């Protein structure tokens, strides 16, 4: 034992602990320790672009975001490549649930302003109703001063809905363009959020309503599911090219590498049949959260 270690031994207890650590580290190096890192796979509805710092209570104050650059916020490992940089935008918290009365006349809401939000493609509209201010997705022709109707009542005769009104699918006529469609009753608009998109009501089957979504796939929703009428704003978004590599960087996408060649289409495209009609019923029970056991040896 060297003079240094001897000196440590005779000083105090903490020095003893230090010596023990130094001796042990020679046998089991940290370098060869196995870290239990769980890296998620991309997909499954999770975004690795940003997380929004939501407060407890709903507010129209634009929220700060934390950009992730394609990383999983838990493990810190890169999950999605090609994401990073760009302009940091504040997030406008959309109130997805358009809740109206189940009986009687609809609630009236007033559009105060139509704003553009850097975190999504469609514009957002600031709406005032009673003491509350909230954001909803703006439709194609929405403008300040518009009065919107919101109801959950399904009348015998279909309603004559205007753009921006929210009604249950069962209350709307066949052929109506809709967006922000609820998956299950009362859970808030989930389907059709992107700029310029809309779903079309095709037919009523029993207590269900069949809607064709922008992907052309047909979904059968319960007739109580609320949808907003009209096509979403910023309709030129889909046909506008990004334009330049620099613009793509501003959008938060990193440069791609490798030789990319456009397919010629020499033999035409493969025509595949659409997936079968998807019927949505009641929400599935919430799965129990997994338990992580530890070995305290």
């Amino acid at each position, binding site marked *: 034992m060297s003079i240094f270690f001897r000196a440590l031994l005779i000083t105090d207890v903490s020095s003893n602990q230090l010596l023990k650590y130094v001796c042990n580290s020679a046998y089991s190096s940290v370098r060869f320790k*196995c870290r*239990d890192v769980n890296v998620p796979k991309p997909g499954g509805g999770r975004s690795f672009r940003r997380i929004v710092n939501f407060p407890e209570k709903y*507010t*129209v*104050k*634009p929220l700060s975001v934390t950009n992730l650059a394609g990383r999983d916020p838990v493990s810190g490992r890169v999950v999605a490549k090609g994401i990073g940089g760009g*302009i940091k935008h*504040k997030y406008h918290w959309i109130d997805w649930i358009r809740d109206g009365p189940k009986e009687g006349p609809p609630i*009236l*809401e*007033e559009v*105060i*302003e139509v*704003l553009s939000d*850097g975190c999504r493609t469609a514009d957002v509209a*600031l709406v*005032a*109703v*009673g*003491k*509350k*201010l909230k954001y909803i997705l703006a439709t194609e022709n929405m403008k300040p001063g518009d*009065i919107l109707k919101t109801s959950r009542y399904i009348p015998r005769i279909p309603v004559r809905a205007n753009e921006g009104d929210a009604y249950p699918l069962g209350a709307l006529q066949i052929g109506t363009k809709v967006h922000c469609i609820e998956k299950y009753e009362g859970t808030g608009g989930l389907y059709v959020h992107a700029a310029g998109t809309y779903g079309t009501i095709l037919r009523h089957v029993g207590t269900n309503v069949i809607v064709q979504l922008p992907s052309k796939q047909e979904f059968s929703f319960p007739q109580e599911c609320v949808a907003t009428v009209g096509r979403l704003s910023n309709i030129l978004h889909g046909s506008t090219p990004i334009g330049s590599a620099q613009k793509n960087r*501003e959008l938060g996408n990193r440069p791609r590498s490798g030789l990319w060649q456009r397919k010629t289409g020499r033999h035409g495209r493969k025509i595949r049949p659409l997936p079968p009609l998807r019927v949505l019923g009641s929400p599935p*029970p919430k*799965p*129990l*959260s*997994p*338990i*992580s*056991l*530890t*070995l305290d040896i």
Partner: protein
Amino acid sequence: MRVTRTLWRQHIGWTFKKHWKVQRHRVPLATGADLVLSQMNIPVVPAEDIVAPSPMRKELKFVGLEDKPLPWDEFHPLYHKQECHMYGNHSVLLKGLDQAKVLTNTVELEQGLPAALPRVTASARHHHLVNNLIMSSLVLDAEQKKLPKLKDPERPAFNFPREYGITDVRGTRLLTYRLIQLCGSISGSPRPVVNHTPVKVTLDRGGSLVQLGMRADQLLVAKTPLSALVDQYSASGMELPSLGQAHFTVSLETDHFYQDSDIYPTGSWAPHTLVLHGNQSEVYNLYETPVTEQQWLGRSLVNLFTVAAAYARAQYGAGVEDLPHPLCVQCCHTDGRLFHFVVLQLNTLGVGTELRNILWSQPRVALFDTCSYKDGQPVLTGYNSDVLDMLLSLYTHSITS
């Protein structure tokens, strides 16, 4: 090709480690037992609460250490069950002047300032002095601080060079302090002024509790309040503006933690004229769009009403609604360039009565067009002499008192 690795006997520990890494994460099976038990009225508690109850922590007191701040819950001394709509220094109302009128139960009898207000005209020498004080406040002051970031909405990625200079808070403060001092010199009998003082009043407006709090940047006071300009019943029963689908408290933030008390700073001295600063760096919409013209006008009314209501409460008690004697207060609301002159006659603090408060207001007027350096030289263009005349008229109103 070898499909699997040969695992030697001495590496069995490694295998266990790998196996445990996967097997330690378990998803419990949903047996539905809790549902059955709850149907039989048997309480279900988490097993951890029984097996490992949380240890009791003993609070130790150390000299020199501050106590932990109280948690913001319903046991906090400032907690009230009824939520309060808070109007503060930064607040603006969504619907601007119309919403302010409904909130304060106020109507306008006529456009412009009251005819009974005596008009005063300043001399050319005084206007020359005002020219000088504008330059010295907004251009020639020695303050050099970082100004707000410049952003071009068309090119959001572009970073402009950071500018240094006089902040709008300091510029406005210097300008109004000097203008009020000049008005005192011109009138010959300077009024007492209270600078930078808080004013607060909490009111029940139709079942909704509203707390109006503000900072009076300059409050000119007098021993006796200004007398009524018109009969207090002259506007009774007049209709208030319609706010459409919005309530008059829309866009006001709500809170359960507040002090239900009033603040009026000068005791028995009555408010004469309120000089209010409306700087763009301080006043903003909650949804971060620029404050509109109507919202600036609404802010003048609400702040002036706050001062008048706080004085009325201090004089006649917290329970007063219809005032025994109407109270007249004036206001000059400015952002350093645009000036808004308002006169309010406070007749009532209630909302359900026929009695209405009366407002006289004129559109905002600019003191100048530009005041900045141009080609390295300080330049002031478009000076408007009406602003000093109007400010002087308000200042000298009922000067003998």
